[in-house]
């Protein structure tokens, strides 16, 4: 989206245009909801609603371009996630046993990668990461946020965010390497056999 187009959209949303809000919601809600789900948010759709309502309340004070807006929305969603977790800390939250269906908003490369690894495997590896590692990786990947923005959102220093990202990626690689021999063993054997 060009800057002019985004500025027009933002101004319309500020004035209360439903069409503008529909466009903003459609563009961001699936990714934000995926982030909330991946981080085990209690009642993720409720948290999503709260996050967007806060965006609507504070949109008059926002200034910036589209990536800045995306980063801002994710920061709000992250804070609402932390609040929701705090409120739900005393009650047992039942996580959905099966990973939710992807929305199909990703590009071809992402779809290809997902086809190679598999949806269940992605969610399994994500679940093995620590909360902080998962948050940092998701904010970096889904929201395209810079190290500094992620650091502000999660309330850590940029150095700590870099370390979390590095450890998270190492854990992902380890898990993928552990899975590969099992998956590749038949193909290797098959190749030898041929």
């Amino acid at each position, binding site marked *: 989206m060009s800057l002019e187009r985004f500025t027009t959209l933002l101004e319309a949303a500020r004035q209360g245009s439903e069409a503008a809000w529909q466009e903003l919601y459609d563009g961001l809600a699936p*990714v934000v909801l995926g982030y909330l789900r991946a981080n085990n948010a209690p009642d993720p759709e409720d948290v999503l609603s709260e996050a967007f309502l806060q965006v609507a309340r504070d949109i008059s004070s926002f200034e910036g371009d589209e990536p800045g807006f995306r980063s801002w929305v994710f920061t709000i969603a992250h804070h609402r996630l932390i609040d929701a977790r705090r409120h739900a800390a005393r009650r047992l939250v039942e996580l959905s046993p099966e990973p939710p269906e*992807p929305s199909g908003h990703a590009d071809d490369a*992402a779809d290809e*990668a997902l086809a190679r690894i598999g949806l269940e495997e992605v969610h399994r590896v994500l679940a093995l990461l620590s909360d902080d590692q998962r948050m940092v990786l998701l904010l*970096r990947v889904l929201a395209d946020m810079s190290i500094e923005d992620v650091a502000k959102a999660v309330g850590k220093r940029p150095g700590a965010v870099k370390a979390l*990202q590095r450890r998270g990626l190492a854990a992902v690689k380890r898990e993928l390497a552990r899975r590969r021999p099992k998956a590749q063993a038949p193909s290797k054997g098959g190749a030898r056999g041929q």
Partner: protein
Amino acid sequence: MGSNPVDGNGAYASEMQEALVFMDALRAAVPTEPDPRLRAELVPRLAGTARASMLEAETRSMRRGTAAVAATPRRPRSRRALVARVAIAIALIPLVFAGLAVAGVTVPSPARSAFDAVGITLPNQPRSESKQSSAEQGSQAPAQTGAPQGGAAQGGGATTETSATSKGNSKAAHEHARAQHEKAKGKALGHERGKAIGLNDATPPGHTGQTGPPAHSNAGGNGGGSSNSNSSSRAPKATHAPNGVAKGPTKTPPGHSK
């Protein structure tokens, strides 16, 4: 989307080859479509909230603007306004004195005389000294000529009065005190019973029943009463020998009978 470099911030390049595929898979796997009912319900609410928020922000900015205008430093007042203020303040001074006088406060004599000069008599004030002094100035000669009416005593009194006036406002103060006494008469318990000396109708000690200023030992006065204070106006008593006649003791010597 999907162009965020993850390998530039300390991650090892060898790890990234494996992890990059996972990141791409994440982009495809994580986003999930929200419930369409939520969208239908939430979007109008978002629009309404944004509209209300925008209105509130505009109102706030208007208030801030008004406050900013109110907070701007005032222009220096014009000279005319300053003069008017000073004039009003000066005009209020006599009113303040008049108010004090009405309330029963004794106004300083300069202020009183200023009022007298323009023909205003302040209420609740002792007889104006200035009036008196002007009256005395006008009638000083006749008063002095009339002094022999009372003999030496009256003459002495007039002299004393004049000297008192010239000294200060002792007479005025005296009259003021009398006026206060008159006012206070009957207010305090016991005054009517004659217990308080000098405040009832009974003749105070040293007074002969005259309705004039109380006799002072140094005022000359009428010489009445039992005061033994020396006074030039007092008639010599019989016990006293005429001047220059009795050089010896006047008392009857022991052994002599009357």
